[in-house]
């Protein structure tokens, strides 16, 4: 492969005219791409080859590479390029990469950022992450094996994330004697599949990452191939950034820039389109209009800003605008909605729970979201649609979701910034999922809150009381129902209007379709929370007695109420004590394995961190407890 000079690294130019080199270098563009395949496909070897050929590897690195190649390499005495790109120590010992790693190299025309993700089964999360910022995907196929299940999986995921440029790199051509017929058979095979999932176009090329054929230079071993080398293609493929500039102007506001009373700017990154001073704009979700007066940058005002640039805008009018708002071209603004259909990729060990409130972060907007049971899950290997009630780690599904307030969005196919979101667990703060909005549901445009003539306040006033929810929580057998009944009796004696919702009773009617899995428990509490909220709107003091083991759902109900109207009452009885009492004989059954998902035994109870009222039942009789709760509710203590 040494018959043509490397196109990568013009040593002569650097040595002779560094200024000319610098001038050329600063005009390079940037392409981000992802490589998909397993170690067996020679993916790490290919990336190692790209880095090596572009001289991104220094002598000291090469020296340690040679030592490593002899110690753990898989290529005998030859340099094992794959070792260049395997990072963490534990992974190196196992011989696999298990995460997304980013690699860098450049040619005369472009700088490249490569997202390197592993090819084994449990990798949907990593590949989706790596692909989310990529303009192009290189799908690697081992020429000896042809199109495999994983090839289909990689292609499906790349397409799902909206990558327009697919390269089919048929690798290890050297191991099949550069067989043209075999290559064409593989490409035809792949085309059938690609068309079936909506990949309209792709570029195929026969290569050898190990030997270098058709990577940087055209291979003398395959004179029958007349297409570009991999590098040539990467250098010339059209960038998403250029296409984004032709879309309508969108500017999610990150930060309000207010150094003094005379300046109020809105800082952000132009997501799509372009903007000039004087352009009429609309601020979403409010819909107010104004015009751009200045485009402020450190080096002086700009005439124009385009997709991909970070700038600060000032507006002609004093309009309300803050983080989370989107400034858009006035005559073609994005939609605002609160109910959507979306594809969701689940990324956490704990399964997705329909109905549980999560944070949804879309660009600079963060809202509470509830996801309905998925319509279906996609088997990423067969692409079949499967029925499911939830999503496990690495599962991909389609579901409807609703946010607690309207958000500014665009379908993902039109904008990654305004259509791609992450899901965050409200307790652990972990990123548990990601998703892509398809469209808003018509419902959300047509179903409005009916303004009620008799207000919540009127209902409460008639009853001469302040509505409230007394939310009892605690282990089975802690004494919730007993104490809740005593509380209600006392309140009724005081002419208060109350209603007690009891766990066991509700499960006979409203929630009789629900079991005791984690997902069903969440739905159980969601429904009870909604009913309790409606009753409080009617002016009632609602008492609920449910184990309600999860913080997230208790928090969800709390957030629907006015401050001071929600009382979390922790009936605090230790597991030992509750089990000793075992009023209903349930602990015995659970211990005997006859009852699954029993709180405290094989299902967790998340203790309230800051309950309004905590009752220690080992130090208080039920009557004393009831008295304490009533006094707290009425503000006597």
């Amino acid at each position, binding site marked *: 492969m040494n018959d043509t000079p490397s196109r990568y690294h013009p040593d002569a130019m650097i*040595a002779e005219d560094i200024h000319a*080199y610098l001038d050329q270098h600063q005009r390079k563009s940037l392409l981000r791409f992802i490589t998909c395949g397993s170690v067996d496909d020679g993916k790490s070897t290919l990336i190692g080859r790209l880095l090596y050929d572009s001289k991104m590897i220094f002598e*000291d690195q090469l020296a340690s590479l040679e030592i490593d190649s002899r110690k753990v390499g898989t290529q005998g005495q030859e340099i094992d390029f794959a070792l260049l790109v395997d990072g963490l120590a534990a992974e*190196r010992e196992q011989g696999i990469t298990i995460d997304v790693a*980013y690699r860098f190299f450049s040619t005369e025309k472009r700088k490249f950022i490569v997202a390197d993700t592993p090819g084994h089964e449990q990798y949907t999360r990593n590949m989706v992450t790596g692909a989310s910022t990529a303009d192009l995907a290189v799908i690697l196929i081992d020429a000896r094996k042809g199109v495999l299940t994983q090839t289909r999986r990689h292609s499906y995921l790349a397409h799902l994330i909206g990558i327009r440029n697919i390269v089919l790199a048929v690798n290890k051509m050297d191991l099949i004697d550069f067989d043209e017929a075999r290559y064409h058979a593989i490409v035809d095979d792949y085309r059938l599949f690609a068309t079936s999932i909506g990949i309209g176009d792709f570029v195929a090329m026969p290569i050898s990452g190990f030997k270098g054929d058709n990577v940087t230079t055209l291979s003398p071993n395959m004179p029958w191939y007349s297409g570009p080398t991999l590098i040539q293609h990467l250098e010339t493929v059209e960038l998403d950034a250029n296409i984004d500039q032709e879309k309508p102007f969108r500017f999610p506001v*990150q930060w309000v820039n207010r150094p003094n009373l005379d300046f109020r700017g809105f800082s952000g990154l132009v997501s799509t389109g372009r903007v000039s001073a004087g352009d009429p704009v609309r601020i979403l979700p409010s819909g107010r209009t104004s015009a751009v007066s200045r485009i402020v940058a450190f080096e002086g005002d700009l005439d124009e800003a385009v997709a991909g640039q970070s700038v600060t805008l000032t507006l002609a009018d004093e309009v309300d605008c803050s983080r989370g708002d989107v400034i858009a071209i006035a005559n073609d603004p994005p939609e605002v909605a609160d109910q959507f259909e979306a594809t969701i990729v689940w990324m956490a060990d704990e399964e997705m729970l329909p109905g549980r409130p999560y944070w949804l972060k879309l660009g600079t907007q963060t809202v509470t979201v509830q996801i309905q049971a998925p319509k279906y899950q996609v088997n990423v290997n067969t692409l079949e649609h499967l029925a499911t009630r939830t999503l496990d780690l690495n599962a991909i599904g389609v579901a409807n979701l609703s946010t607690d307030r309207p958000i500014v969005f665009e379908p993902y196919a039109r904008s990654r910034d305004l259509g791609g979101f992450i899901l965050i667990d409200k307790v652990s703060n972990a990123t548990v999922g990601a998703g892509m909005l398809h469209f808003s549901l018509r419902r959300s445009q047509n179903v409005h809150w009916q303004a009620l003539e008799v207000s919540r306040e009127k209902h409460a006033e008639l009853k001469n009381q302040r509505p409230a929810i007394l939310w009892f929580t605690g282990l089975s057998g802690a004494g919730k129902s007993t104490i809740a009944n005593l509380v209600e009796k006392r309140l009724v004696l005081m002419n208060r209007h109350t209603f007690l919702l009891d766990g066991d009773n509700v499960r006979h009617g409203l929630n009789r379709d629900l079991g005791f899995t984690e997902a069903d428990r969440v739905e159980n509490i969601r429904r009870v929370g909604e009913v309790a909220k409606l009753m409080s709107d009617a002016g009632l003091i609602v008492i609920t007695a449910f184990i309600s083991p999860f913080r997230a759902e208790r928090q969800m109900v709390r957030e629907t109420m006015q401050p001071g109207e929600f009382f979390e009452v922790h009936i605090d009885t230790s597991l030992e004590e509750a089990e000793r009492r075992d009023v209903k004989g349930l602990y015995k059954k659970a211990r005997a394995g006859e009852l699954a998902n029993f709180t405290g035994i094989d299902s967790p109870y998340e203790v309230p961190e800051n309950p309004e009222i905590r009752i220690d039942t080992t130090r208080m009789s039920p009557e004393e407890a009831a008295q304490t709760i009533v006094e707290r509710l009425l503000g006597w203590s």
Partner: protein
Amino acid sequence: MARLLTHLERLEAESIHILREVVSETERPVMLYSVGKDSAVMLHLARKAFHPSPPPFPLLHVDTTWKFRAMYELRDRMARQSGMELIVYRNPEAMDRGINPFDHGSLHTDMWKTEGLKQALDKYGFDAAFGGARRDEEKSRAKERIFSFRSTNHRWDPKNQRPELWRNYNARKAKGESIRVFPISNWTELDIWQYIHLEGIPIVPLYFAQKRPTVERDGLILMVDDDRFPLREGEVPVERSIRFRTLGCYPLTGAVESEASNLPEVIQEMLLTTTSERQGRAIDHDQTASMEKKKQEGYF
């Protein structure tokens, strides 16, 4: 007709976006300022991100007292120029025990830098710290996220990092936890130099070749920066034309012999050279993947 953004413009826009996200989503951010070339770029980006406001966070220099004099000079000048508060923190225990790079080896880095940083973050209650690390520096860095989460005792768990999709960063954390944020993750060494050149960013003159007093020790060329440098028997400082590719504590940082006295020449030399920049640092020679071990212990 599209206006093609260059790779440097796109890297700049990405870094600025990250800086603004952190300021919007955390309570008390700080920028770790080591006075090196990467810090210089990061500070410049911060000034651009919030212009016309000054960057709304302080600079923190975790000092070892063993930095080159030229670094202290630039540090103070840049703080004045940017209008930012400069916090200098020195680990009082290392101070009391007189920890130095000549007698204490790796304990020097551990106490002044690793411990010093943890102490400073705790003392001021910073919940987010910008650092100038880059993914191209070292293999284990290639996998680190831009937002890197640390437990309440500052430990990094490589198995428990959050996936980062699109430009959508999750900065939520529990009380006591903190984030290290690396806004220039995707820059390479060449990008850094090119950007410094294009933007005219001030850097420490030690990056440029000049005749300086040196001794050669264990294969490294060390600069005798002040009279605290303990000369071994028979060692006489020799004037050599040297410069530094990376700057740390002066006795730990090896220089290279060079005639490159301006930026284009430095870049030229860098492009034609055949060793990676971290080779000059004694800290990395211990064992393979030593950075990864250090990171888990809380080294930046």
